[in-house]
């Protein structure tokens, strides 16, 4: 089982759209996928029409793994399940560490989740917190959407610095350009500059697209209702690239 986080310390960069569509693309490729909505706003769940579970607000929730498993909901799509949002992140640490070190202290219930999924995607809240730090530790890869603007450039540099300070593995970070408008020279120039400085930036880029915006109306992954639009298809390209990184790591 591989854990892929979708993270940005800046809001409004298309993070949830990315999580939802990557999870969809991943499941379509036949991987049993669990998308965990860690963002308290619960947007991932909204896109899958899954009602947030009241039970999830309870404390110590993640210590009680059986109840955690019970909160998982099937999406409308094959091989794709969802853990709806509204959780206390303090306990999520424990959950994540157990997932990661499944062989040592994992109890039976959690072990079963471990074998039920090939890929777990985490839709993370947009801040640097104790939760995000734990995510940095457990995730095999961290996909970071970057809008090619000066401000986003700064945020990405901050993230790299933070990783350096804390001694986290920098190569986990997989930035990619999000909401790209090729008509804007600022976007094009920023992308050129950033690619020169950061070789790890993924080749795939997600254009700004009204089809992606329409996800709120359809309440479904854009790939499921506008999968033939080139802008939307770029999520598939993005997933293929991420997948190749996980597979490579496996060898």
């Amino acid at each position, binding site marked *: 089982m591989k854990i892929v986080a979708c993270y940005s310390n800046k809001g409004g960069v298309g993070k949830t759209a990315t999580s939802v569509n990557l999870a969809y693309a991943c499941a379509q490729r036949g991987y049993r996928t669990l998308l965990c909505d860690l963002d308290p706003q619960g947007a991932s769940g909204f896109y899958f029409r899954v009602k947030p579970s009241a039970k999830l607000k309870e404390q110590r929730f993640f210590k009680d793994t059986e109840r955690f498993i019970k909160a998982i*909901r099937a999406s409308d799509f094959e091989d794709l*399940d969802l853990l709806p949002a509204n959780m206390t992140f303090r306990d999520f640490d424990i959950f994540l560490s157990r997932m990661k070190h499944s062989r040592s202290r994992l109890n039976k219930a959690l072990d079963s989740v471990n074998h039920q999924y090939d890929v777990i995607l985490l839709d993370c809240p947009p801040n640097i917190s104790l939760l995000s730090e734990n995510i940095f530790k457990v995730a095999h890869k961290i996909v970071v959407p970057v809008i090619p603007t000066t401000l986003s450039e700064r945020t990405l540099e901050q993230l790299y610095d933070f990783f350096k300070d804390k001694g986290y593995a920098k190569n986990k970070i997989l930035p990619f350009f999000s909401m790209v408008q090729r008509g804007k020279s600022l976007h094009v120039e920023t992308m050129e500059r950033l690619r020169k400085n950061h070789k790890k930036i993924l080749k795939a880029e997600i254009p700004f697209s009204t089809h992606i915006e329409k996800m709120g109306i359809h309440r479904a992954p854009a790939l499921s209702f506008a999968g033939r639009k080139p802008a939307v298809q770029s999520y598939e390209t993005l997933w293929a690239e991420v997948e190749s990184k996980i597979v490579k790591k496996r060898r």
Partner: protein
Amino acid sequence: MTNDSRQFVIAGAVTGRKINQRLPKGSKLKLCGSEPQSGMVLDTFDGILAGQGKLLILAGTTLICADVQTAKTDVLELSSAWNRFAETLPECDLKDHLVRLTALRLLFPVGEVDVLNLFLPLLDEEKKTCCRLSGLIISQEKQSLSFLQTHAMRGYDAYHQQLIQALDGQTGGAAPEYHEILTLETSGYSAKPEIRLEPDAPVFDSLRLLVTTYLNVARKNEEGVIADYDTEFLHDYRVSLRKIRSVLSLFKNVLSEEDTAHLKQSFSEIMKETNLLRDRDVYLLSKPDYFSMVPPRLHRGLETLFEMLEEERNRAHQAIRRMLKSQDYQNIMSGLENWFGPDNEQLRGEFANAPSKKYGCGLIMKRYRKVCRIAKSITVETPDETIHELRIQCKKLRYLIESFAPLFPKKQIKTLLKKLKRMQEHLGLFNDRSVQQVSLEEFMNNHTIRGKKGLRLAESIGALTSMLYSEQLRERDLIVANLAAFGSPETRTAFNNLFMIGENDK
């Protein structure tokens, strides 16, 4: 990712609208229209699938197998034209299942139906899918049968339960009898029809009943042999004639000696005509086995051999076709039917009036003792002729037990026959291997092919013959090893319990 699911078979057409009326507020099946497709129900000549409660339907290029007992449906998409033999289906579980059931038989169309595919998601208030209902509605005129399956989704058990409850309200409890709902043109044929013998009835009457029953079985296969639908028609035809012949020769002194001789000869002559075709059928059916017996470099020669065998087979079939259609044959058969008819006052043999059960027990015990006597004498050094003699005696014993089987408890007869069959299996293979060697030799003598082709053919036949010989030796060893089990006190007691009592009755 829950795989929880429940299956339902419901008499009548179950629509999403009907189920929605039974669902609580807030959950509704999404109604999606789909067009019915016309399909053909398939079954073997002897109705094997109907007997197993299976409904096999070919609708366009889709093959559907629905099970009335379990409500499970299997679907297979066919990519190319299909000759309606299970064996030629693409590899899959459904194929394996159908091959096990229908073996070598052709699947005939037995009725026309309409097939409607259902796939309905159950939605909550947010229009989120919470479980699914899939299935098939099979209809014929105004009668329908619905095969439905629910699919639970993780985290939505409550909705799944709602759907199950709504469906439970529609079923009538027991699985519906699909024969009562759909009209299918089944032949009603059985290779082993139930025969009701009376223990105290004169054995003459029993003999007449057995002969007329099997004569009828044989006649029902004629059309299939002529049309060459599948090889089982000829096989069943021959088996029933062989049964008649053995009844005639084993039921001693029931008919007059003259009549017995005359009748036996009539049946033997018909049988003889079919020998070549059956022999070639057997070769062709086990073609893959023969290829696996010899090294690949000899396969070209074997190809030539099988091409020639197939040509011979087709010629043999033409000959039998002509025979079965001839007036001569029709006259002989109706003559035999009349001979055994109720109005014919035949000359009777000395034991014609003996009570059937007592007579049968006597014959069986006598034959069993004979088998035991030969079996006891067999060692590693025994000549092949004795083994052949044992095979013949076992065969006779088997026919006797089978003929009188209706007079005895089914279960006990079955156990006994099982033992006998196990023994016969090796004896049969031993004989087959030896017959095949002779028939290959004959084949070589009858066909002279010059040049390289002939050389290759001779080479492959030579290799095959030596393989057959070593298999024959192996079977011989197995026979010797299995003899002990057959002559065991346990088997002896079983025979005594079943047949001695009858023998000593009265």
